[in-house]
């Protein structure tokens, strides 16, 4: 149990780190007074603007501002959105379902495609199925996701008119963003599954398994694949971060109304507290997913115990 507590503490540190970095970078780009005041600033004297700045606390050094932000945040108050005129955290929470929907579909899609393909490749090395999937994986890993998104849009949206180009509402809206988001994890996990399987197929215990007279299917599943899952599960942990981070780009391109797009818009309008709430929420999800993956890892590998 102490292991779990330690991991949770680590996660808290990570979330703090992420929020400090985000806060500092945003601060470096200037304070948001002008944006908040908007056109109203034209009718104000420099004196008045300065008074507003002091009133909002933007005149203080960034770490003081950060400290007061944290002081409020731990009480559940993430500040107020300047542009949406509602609590920043609420802005983010409202966008969560769309992001989770997209990320989890991409996640499931990536596992359903990559692991079986990787296994097939590994048990038929250098056969056509292996060569084709390895080639496709290479493509999938080297095409940037924004580029793939645009290609998909041009082909299925503009040319064939099969799928809506952007927005949300129907399952058709999900198809292209999900594929664009899943492409890289599919490619990477497929290659990882393949190489991990090939690695374990050389192991002594696989020869032992064959020497028992069990079916080749059993050899592959309960001996080779089961062991190969260890490195794959590690990669999946990192993937949660990738999917959440990647969704920022994909959501923006496809106009998917999720947290990622909201953060991008908030950065554009210097909506400090929304950016903070968004970044912290994503970091929290990332930490929680990683914790779950860690627990899964020790479940798969009996040599790793919670105690140690």
């Amino acid at each position, binding site marked *: 149990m102490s292991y779990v507590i330690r991991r949770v503490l680590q996660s808290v540190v990570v979330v703090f780190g992420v929020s400090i970095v985000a806060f500092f970078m945003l601060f470096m780009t200037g304070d948001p007074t002008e944006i908040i005041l908007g056109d109203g600033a034209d009718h104000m004297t420099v004196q008045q603007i300065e008074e507003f700045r002091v009133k909002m606390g933007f005149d203080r050094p960034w770490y003081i501002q950060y400290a007061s932000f944290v002081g409020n945040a731990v009480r559940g108050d993430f500040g107020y959105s300047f542009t949406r005129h509602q609590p920043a955290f609420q802005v983010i929470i409202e966008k969560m379902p769309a992001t989770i929907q997209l990320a989890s579909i991409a996640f499931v899609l990536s596992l359903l495609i990559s692991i079986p393909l990787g296994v097939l490749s590994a048990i038929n090395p250098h056969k056509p199925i292996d060569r084709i999937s390895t080639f496709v994986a290479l493509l999938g890993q080297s095409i940037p996701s924004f580029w793939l998104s645009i290609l998909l849009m041009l082909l299925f949206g503009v040319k064939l008119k099969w799928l809506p180009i952007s927005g949300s509402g129907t399952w058709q809206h999900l198809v292209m963003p999900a594929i664009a988001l899943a492409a890289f994890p599919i490619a990477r996990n497929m290659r990882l599954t393949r190489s991990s399987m090939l690695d374990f197929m*050389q*192991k*002594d*215990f696989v*020869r*032992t*398994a*064959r*020497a*028992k*007279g*069990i*079916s*080749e299917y*059993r050899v592959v599943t*309960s*001996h080779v694949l*089961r*062991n190969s899952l*260890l490195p794959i599960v590690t990669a999946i942990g990192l993937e949660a971060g990738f999917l959440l981070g990647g969704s920022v780009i994909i959501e923006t391109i496809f106009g998917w109304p999720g947290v990622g797009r909201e953060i991008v818009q908030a950065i554009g309008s210097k909506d400090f507290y929304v950016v903070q709430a968004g970044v912290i929420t994503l970091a929290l999800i990332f930490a929680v997913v990683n914790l779950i993956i860690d627990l899964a890892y020790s479940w*798969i*590998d*009996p*040599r790793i115990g919670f105690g140690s």
Partner: protein
Amino acid sequence: MIQAVPPASMEAMETSVSNFAPLEGGLQPEPALLEVRDLTTKFYTVDGVVNALNGISYSVRKGECLAIVGESGSGKTVGVLSILRLIQSPPGKIVGGSISFKGTDLLKLDDNALRDIRGGAISVIFQDPMTSLNPVMRVGAQITENIMAHEALTRRQARDKAIEMLSRVGIPTPAKRVDDYPHQFSGGMRQRVMIAMALSCSPQLIIADEPTTALDVTIQAQIVELVKKLQSELGTAVIWISHDLGVVARLADRVAVMYAGHIVESAPVDELYARPAHPYTIGLLNSLPRLDAKVKTKLQAIGGLPPNLLGELRGCPFAPRCAFATDICRAQNPALLEVTPSHGVACWHDRLTGGRA
């Protein structure tokens, strides 16, 4: 209604006949359990063809223990793994010969029939107990899996049998240990688990590939005693590969000496130790402090290195290291021939008869 004699009683008759057959003089020898003829295995690697096994022949009788000795790389492992077609393929390929087990050629069996033999009538104990068990599977499940592949038992019954096997090989509190993972066992205990697994379906032949090399000396002795005891209890035939001539002397009925993918000498154990005929065997035995020594000695005391098996060899493979080598040795490889009954040597100038050339 009288029917034709059912096959079962036919078998029984045959067995009783062979039980009465005179064993002396080799007039009507009991048919061998395993008969390997001209077994040839090559590895097709990027560097070229490795001639790992160059036509070896031997036989093992019911209940007999055959030891195979030889330097590292001489083809001992490839030789025995070829029996169950367990060599890594590619690059390995059995290119010739026959392996007759109770009259069936294992090389001609389809995959299904071969799987019935693997872990059933013939089982294997591998060299390194640390790497030969699946690290993420409970040992009980690993044994149960073997049992269920060959016997019509429920999971529950197979598990009970696994516990019984664990207790038989001397694992304390087997009912508890059955649910442990390999990393929770010491090396010696893991090798006991391997042995329990290998014995679980009452095999007629156990192949033990240096089962004690990775273990420390006291554990080695325990494992040897264990196998000896189980062998005499169960009447199982054993092929025991070893570097350790001390162990061989205690365990084996016959010894086959391998060199560069050939069997160069084969004889009953007392005969081999008392009257070795091949210069290589003599070298091996001279490297022992005393012929009946219990001291463990690695087979390394002969000057020079074994030949590279990449590509074809001409002549006797031992010629470059042999003090007795002549022109014919370098030109032609001698066949394994009996110099006295049941004592075979592959040498032009063997030290027992003075030679054939």
